[in-house]
């Protein structure tokens, strides 16, 4: 470790003024304040932060997925001009590990490397290029070990232990009814093996932030994250500081989708800032970002469904093996979610579900939109299609026949709360008009699979239609104390009433800032609202994940507004007497009986401020049989996909996605449509394109050139049917909306591909070689002309007949 030779005066960073907006009320489409600056490039993301005297941080990462570290020599890097600090694990003054559920991930590795890209040392220098060059001067002596990259292999007794107590991080078993007895009673049984690849959140803004020492031993961190308080608490523990000496402020977040729920560079930047006594900025590049956050868990799933001849489900057996990668992250909860959603939104009288989560030397996996339900939904919906085929039934009819209803019990024992409109959303999505099917020959190329690549003029193109339905828990589950805090201030500013709303809830692009303003506008009847920058000066809002912020932070803002309103009315009653009738606030005036009784300006000589916490009803961990009231709210969505497939080349055009989703209450219809379209795009990505390719523990495609994402040309139009069936327990009756669109869109697309091709397609993303029937999985090596690969493929016309 080196210290800066010149210590500047304590730097400070001015807190920007919160913009004053005039939002619509709840239920009205309201344009977001950050929309235009984001489009024009004026919005300040965390990667844009800057301060005078700022240094640049950089991270040395292991090139090996599994290795012992024998020595780290930083002397040459330390001697470089412009380098202010080179830090290793020895410089971590507090807890040397972090993790949201289980602190098992080193801040900086000390003697064992468990994944390729794991941080080993950090550098601060006066220029980013100097920092990068300094990394090259750090000498690390590794003993390279064989990586353990298969989760099923990692679970074997004789597998090398990657962590002290073995490689099985969690096993959840759900035991419901009597499967052994039921399996003898089923008329039809279908089995299937399914696989989901490792999807990336692929947020556009890489991990970045600015750490500023306060000159008194503490630090301010400006950061893009999903959960300020959990970041703060973990950073403080690793810095060996009390939480109040670590203050976090949310900076511009360029997308999250779960990938910012864990720490990345937070501790590193703060360590460097405190050591150098200078502001330190860290920004990952695109490749580094793939090593810097967790991904969606790859899953291997085995299913067995038994049903009567008339199509009633008799039992379901499911076994999941999820690859957690090197460290725990939120894998414990993902493992539980996969288990609880394994059977789908269906009446299943008997079920046996086993969900395992194993450590491997692959990159760590954790939260991503859908959180265990995505994998499960691909499995159970593939099975429902297979069962429908075996029974000779319409796949939607089979789903409707078995749809779960309020008052039923899920296989994990919880009673289904109302509303649970599974039948309704399936019937609605089926009833939507089908897209026009133009004559395929002679079409504009852009309306054919392969587009302007000119791969077909219509020959070999077949249309397919597929359906899927899903459900997802909203909010934190299994006994976690899930709450949010809101501070609301009502005052007169510049002669007009103004509401200021302050929470620590992370706006990650979903529109929460606008929603908070709409709630304040609605509850307090004041047009002007300013939502203050989220930071740790106010209590925790919990994470922006699990589709929970509208419910929990929205609930907190509503409750705080109600408390402010009550105090306001107390003042009015003091002024006008207790018999002043039913009071309300409209357009900046206090109203009673339809008449203005006082302008707010006359009551607000002193501002009114209230800070409240809001909690949803409690949840409970499952018992030893996987039974319990585990979740708080369930959101349901159904999708229909229409695809056209070039069955010779395996190219796909998704013609249309239609969806029906119950949202409880459309709080901001414009933002809701955006959430649904975005979620559908991410589901399409998993169905057809998105997968982190890993070979021997190493990521092969850590760029947006090689990690394939859907573009506007890949996305079809999305037809939506929004149901507003109020949840009686939720604020405004709302349901979380962010995740459901991602979950059932994927299996709907794959079902449509199966319909078009007749192939089994048990793995996502579905690759062209699987569509044309070359292999169920991508080959280890590409076939070459004259090789056995080509010989096995046979002639094209023969393959067509397979």
């Amino acid at each position: 470790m080196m210290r800066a030779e010149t210590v500047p005066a304590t730097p400070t960073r001015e807190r920007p003024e919160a913009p004053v907006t005039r939002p619509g009320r709840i239920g009205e489409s309201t344009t977001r304040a950050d929309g235009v600056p984001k489009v024009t490039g004026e919005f300040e993301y965390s990667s844009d932060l800057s301060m005078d005297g700022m240094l640049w941080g950089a991270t040395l990462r292991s090139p090996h997925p599994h290795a012992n570290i024998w020595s780290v020599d930083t002397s040459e890097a330390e001697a470089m001009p412009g380098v202010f600090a080179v830090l290793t694990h020895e410089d971590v003054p507090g807890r040397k590990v972090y993790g949201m559920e289980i602190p098992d991930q080193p801040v900086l590795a000390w003697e064992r490397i468990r994944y390729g890209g794991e941080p080993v040392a950090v550098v601060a220098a006066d220029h980013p290029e100097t920092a990068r060059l300094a990394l090259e001067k750090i000498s690390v002596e590794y003993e390279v070990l064989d990586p353990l990259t298969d989760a099923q292999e990692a679970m074997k007794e004789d597998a090398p232990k990657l962590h002290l107590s073995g490689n099985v991080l969690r096993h959840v078993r759900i035991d419901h009814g009597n499967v052994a007895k039921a399996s003898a009673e089923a008329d039809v049984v279908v089995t299937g093996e399914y696989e989901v690849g490792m999807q990336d959140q692929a947020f556009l803004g890489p991990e970045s932030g600015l750490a500023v020492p306060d000159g008194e031993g503490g630090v301010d961190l400006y950061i893009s994250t999903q959960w300020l308080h959990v970041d703060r608490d973990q950073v403080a523990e690793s810095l060996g500081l009390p939480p109040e000496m670590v203050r976090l402020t949310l900076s511009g977040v360029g997308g999250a989708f779960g990938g910012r729920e864990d720490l990345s560079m937070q501790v590193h930047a703060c360590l460097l800032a405190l050591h150098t006594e200078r502001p330190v900025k860290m920004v990952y590049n695109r490749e580094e970002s793939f090593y810097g956050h967790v991904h969606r868990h790859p899953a291997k799933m085995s299913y067995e469904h038994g049903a009567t001849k008339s199509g009633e489900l008799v039992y379901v057996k499911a076994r999941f093996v999820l690859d957690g990668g090197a460290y725990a992250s939120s894998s414990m909860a993902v493992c539980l979610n996969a288990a609880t959603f394994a059977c789908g939104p269906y009446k299943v009288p008997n079920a046996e579900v086993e969900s395992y989560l194993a450590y491997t030397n692959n990159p760590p996996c954790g939260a991503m939109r859908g959180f265990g339900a995505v994998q499960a939904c691909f499995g159970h919906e593939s099975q429902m299609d297979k069962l429908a085929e075996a029974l000779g039934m319409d796949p939607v009819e089979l789903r409707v026949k078995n749809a779960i209803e309020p008052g039923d019990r899920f296989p994990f024992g919880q009673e289904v709360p109302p509303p649970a409109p599974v039948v309704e959303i399936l019937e609605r999505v089926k009833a939507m008009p089908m897209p026009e099917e133009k004559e395929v020959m002679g079409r504009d190329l852009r309306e054919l699979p392969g587009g302007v690549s000119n791969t077909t003029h219509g020959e070999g193109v077949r249309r397919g239609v597929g359906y899927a339905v899903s459900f997802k828990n909203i909010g934190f589950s299994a006994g976690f104390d899930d709450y949010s805090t809101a501070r609301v201030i009502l005052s007169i500013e510049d002669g007009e009433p103004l509401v200021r709303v302050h929470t620590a809830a992370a706006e990650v692009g979903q529109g929460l800032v606008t929603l908070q303003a709409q709630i304040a506008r609605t509850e307090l009847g004041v047009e002007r609202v300013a939502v203050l920058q989220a930071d740790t000066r106010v209590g925790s809002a919990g994470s922006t994940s699990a589709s929970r912020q509208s419910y929990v932070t929205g609930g907190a803002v509503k409750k705080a507004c109600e408390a402010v309103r009550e105090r306001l009315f107390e003042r009015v009653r003091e002024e006008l007497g207790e018999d002043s009738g039913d009071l309300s606030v409209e357009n900046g005036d206090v109203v009673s009986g339809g008449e203005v009784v006082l302008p707010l300006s006359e009551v607000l000589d002193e501002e009114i401020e209230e800070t409240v916490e809001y909690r949803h009803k409690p949840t409970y961990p499952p018992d030893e049989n996987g039974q319990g009231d585990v979740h708080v709210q369930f959101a349901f969505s159904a999708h229909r996909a229409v695809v056209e497939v070039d069955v010779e080349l395996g190219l796909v055009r998704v013609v249309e996605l239609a969806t029906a989703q119950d949202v409880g209450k459309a709080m901001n219809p414009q933002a809701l449509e955006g959430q649904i379209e975005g979620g559908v795009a991410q589901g399409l990505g998993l169905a057809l394109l998105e997968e982190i390719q890993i070979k021997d523990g190493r990521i092969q495609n850590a760029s947006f050139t090689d990690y394939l994402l859907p573009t506007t040309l890949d996305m079809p139009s999305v037809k939506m049917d929004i149901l507003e069936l109020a949840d009686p327990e939720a604020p405004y009756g709302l349901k979380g909306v962010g995740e459901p669109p991602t979950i059932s869109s994927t299996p709907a697309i794959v079902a449509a591909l199966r319909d078009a091709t007749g192939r089994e397609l048990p793995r996502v993303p579905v690759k062209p070689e699987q569509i044309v029937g070359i292999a169920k999985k991508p080959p280890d090596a590409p076939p070459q002309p004259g090789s056995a690969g080509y010989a096995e493929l046979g002639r094209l016309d023969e393959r067509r007949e397979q």
Partner: protein
Amino acid sequence: MPGYERAEVSAELTVVPSEHAGKPPREQIETAKTAAGETGLAREAGPETLVLAGSRREVLEATVEVIEASLDAGARAVELKVEAEGESGRFGGGG
């Protein structure tokens, strides 16, 4: 999303090896880690530090086993911190 039942108790053990024992310092630490791993409750938390997490009874019993293994291997000391997770104040508690 930390939505699961948290461990009731955790014990953080830091092994201080002896330069004069029969086994070299690294081996003393490895012995402690192996003993910890066998309890099924352990994770590493630093070069000489490990954490046992679980129910109160199982953590306390495992702690004794690890301390005994460490001392048998020649460790000079084992520093111990036992924490009730419910009181730890982590994960967003307070402002």
